[in-house]
């Protein structure tokens, strides 16, 4: 690259002046304007944008909540209720933040489901996928620490149980736990550091999201067929086609979000978290927030402490190596007659884990949890590697524009047409 002003194509003198010196407008135009995007996305491809918007909502509401919140064991519970009662629109901001966490997980779970179903983790998008798993882990940490802040019974006992997980590790376990607590139990120092980290981590997430998007714009998006675009006839400029499509999804998403916030704001929460934390009384049934239930079920399925903890962490860490466990060259499950039912069963199995995680750890529930846990891992470690060898995929379409096999040469005139709209 030569030194000097950027060769800007913008006509507006102010935009041009800035763009010559810092080509942000050229970049935006390239990445979100003319960016060639496969023309065959379905609405599953909305969920990345929805997750991005939700992250923004969480950061905005969180920043404003923190202006009224007091991170102290004696004040936290009352300061949250003061937000609900006395701060102008405090109830709205808090309920959006509270339910926003649930919405964020719903959106991201669907986003991950889409990635798994359509094989978006496969070459050349492995790093894109890995960055996504990093985001998910950071989200889990952030959500966990955020749930501690209102200092209700579930906050306190959730924090106690989760931090105690680390005591399972031999030798260093107790050291790690005391390091997390800053004391000998979950107490004021713990609350303070969780608040600090809960404020910090979303910005780390934002940074990794930036890398996630940057990586996406190098490889380009996958699509429902899993066949790379062969030329301009297979793509559309991102704007206005996908800005319009994402907007539709976004507004529909807001309707669901608003339904939760305004009419059943506490449906996804636990009533015990409206009881101030009491270090002397454990609630009869401790359950984490719903989005952690599958992992909680895996933890409880193993009768050994260390084994349960390792399996629980392993259930997510295994996602990191998914691109190498599934070596089938075919991306989309549409063309994988065996992998498709196995994967859909895995999805149902995930929901079963979510359900059983909320049940008491006794009787038949333990057995269900154990079977589900076994299948959860078997899918990754046995089913996918074997299918890569033995599955006979359906014939793939030649390209996105010609989903049927054996078509003649492409009519160039028709194919070039969409580009004119750019």
């Amino acid at each position, binding site marked *: 690259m030569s030194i000097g002003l950027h060769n800007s194509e913008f006509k507006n003198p102010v935009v041009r002046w800035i763009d010559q010196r810092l080509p942000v407008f050229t970049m935006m135009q390239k990445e979100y304007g003319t960016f060639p995007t496969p023309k065959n996305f379905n609405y599953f491809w909305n969920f990345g944008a929805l997750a991005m918007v939700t992250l923004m909502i969480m950061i905005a509401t969180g920043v404003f909540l923190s202006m009224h919140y007091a991170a102290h064991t004696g004040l936290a519970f009352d300061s949250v209720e003061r937000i609900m009662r006395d701060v102008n629109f*405090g109830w709205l901001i808090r309920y959006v933040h509270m339910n926003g966490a649930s919405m964020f997980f719903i959106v991201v779970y669907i986003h991950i489901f889409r990635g798994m179903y359509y094989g978006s983790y496969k070459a050349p998008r492995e790093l894109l996928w890995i960055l996504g798993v990093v985001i998910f882990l950071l989200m889990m940490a952030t959500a966990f620490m955020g749930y501690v802040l209102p200092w209700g019974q579930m906050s306190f006992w959730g924090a106690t149980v989760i931090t105690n997980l680390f005591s399972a590790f031999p030798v260093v376990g107790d050291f790690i736990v005391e390091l997390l607590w800053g004391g000998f139990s979950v107490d004021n120092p713990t609350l303070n550091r969780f608040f600090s980290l809960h404020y910090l981590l979303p910005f780390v997430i934002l940074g990794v999201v930036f890398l996630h998007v940057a990586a996406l714009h190098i490889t380009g998006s996958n699509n429902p067929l899993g066949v790379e675009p062969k030329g301009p006839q297979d793509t559309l400029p991102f704007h206005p086609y996908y800005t319009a499509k994402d907007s539709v999804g976004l507004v529909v998403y807001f309707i669901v979000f608003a339904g939760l916030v305004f009419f059943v704001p506490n449906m996804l929460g636990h009533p015990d978290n409206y009881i101030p934390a009491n270090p002397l009384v454990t609630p009869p049934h401790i359950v984490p927030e719903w989005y952690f239930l599958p992992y909680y079920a895996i933890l409880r399925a193993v009768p050994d402490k260390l084994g349960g903890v390792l399996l629980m962490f392993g259930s997510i860490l295994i996602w990191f190596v998914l691109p190498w466990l599934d070596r089938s060259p075919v991306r989309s499950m549409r063309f994988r007659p065996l992998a498709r039912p196995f994967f859909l069963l895995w999805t149902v199995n995930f929901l079963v884990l979510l359900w059983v995680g909320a049940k008491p750890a006794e009787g038949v529930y333990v057995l269900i949890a154990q079977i589900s846990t076994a299948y959860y891992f078997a899918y990754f470690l046995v089913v996918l590697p074997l299918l890569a060898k033995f599955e006979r995929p359906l014939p793939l379409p030649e390209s996105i524009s010609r989903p049927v096999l054996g078509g003649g040469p492409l009519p160039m005139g028709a194919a070039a047409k969409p580009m004119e709209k750019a």
Partner: protein
Amino acid sequence: MADTAHAATDGAPRRDFLKLVTGAFAAVGVGAIAWPFIASLQPAKDTLALATTDVDLAPIAEGQAVTVMWRGKPVFVRSRTPKEIQEARAVPTSALPDPATDQSRVQREQWLVLIGICTHLGCVPSGQRATDARGEYGGWFCPCHGSHYDTSGRIRKGPAPRNLDVPQYAFTSDTKIRIG
């Protein structure tokens, strides 16, 4: 515009109108989202409800002053001597930077109630104790930038633009006032 020919054909104008309406709707929505955030920064309901302070005047001897807290600000309550009252009333309003009669600034002439914040840049003027510097006019003196206030709390000399503010207050009995 090269597009004009296209716009005349069917479909195109409707799309533009649609886009305009949708854009306007979305803009209204974004504006509506901004409001709760801004409103949340305004004083909360409990803050507003606490906005009164009762002061018992009985223990304040003539010539003395007390400072009480009201809405997080110092309020000066001064029991003025006849000499101070006379001084304050003798000044012609035309000689003042911010003309106001002493009568307009007190409810009962003995009791002067002021917000103790210099109208220049927000420091607390000295002069509450007899040993404090009270400036050239026997009232208060702001040490930050040298504003002199008289025994009615009016600015007489220095950079402050206005007299010390008088808060809303009422006598609830002969020896009690409620500020706010």
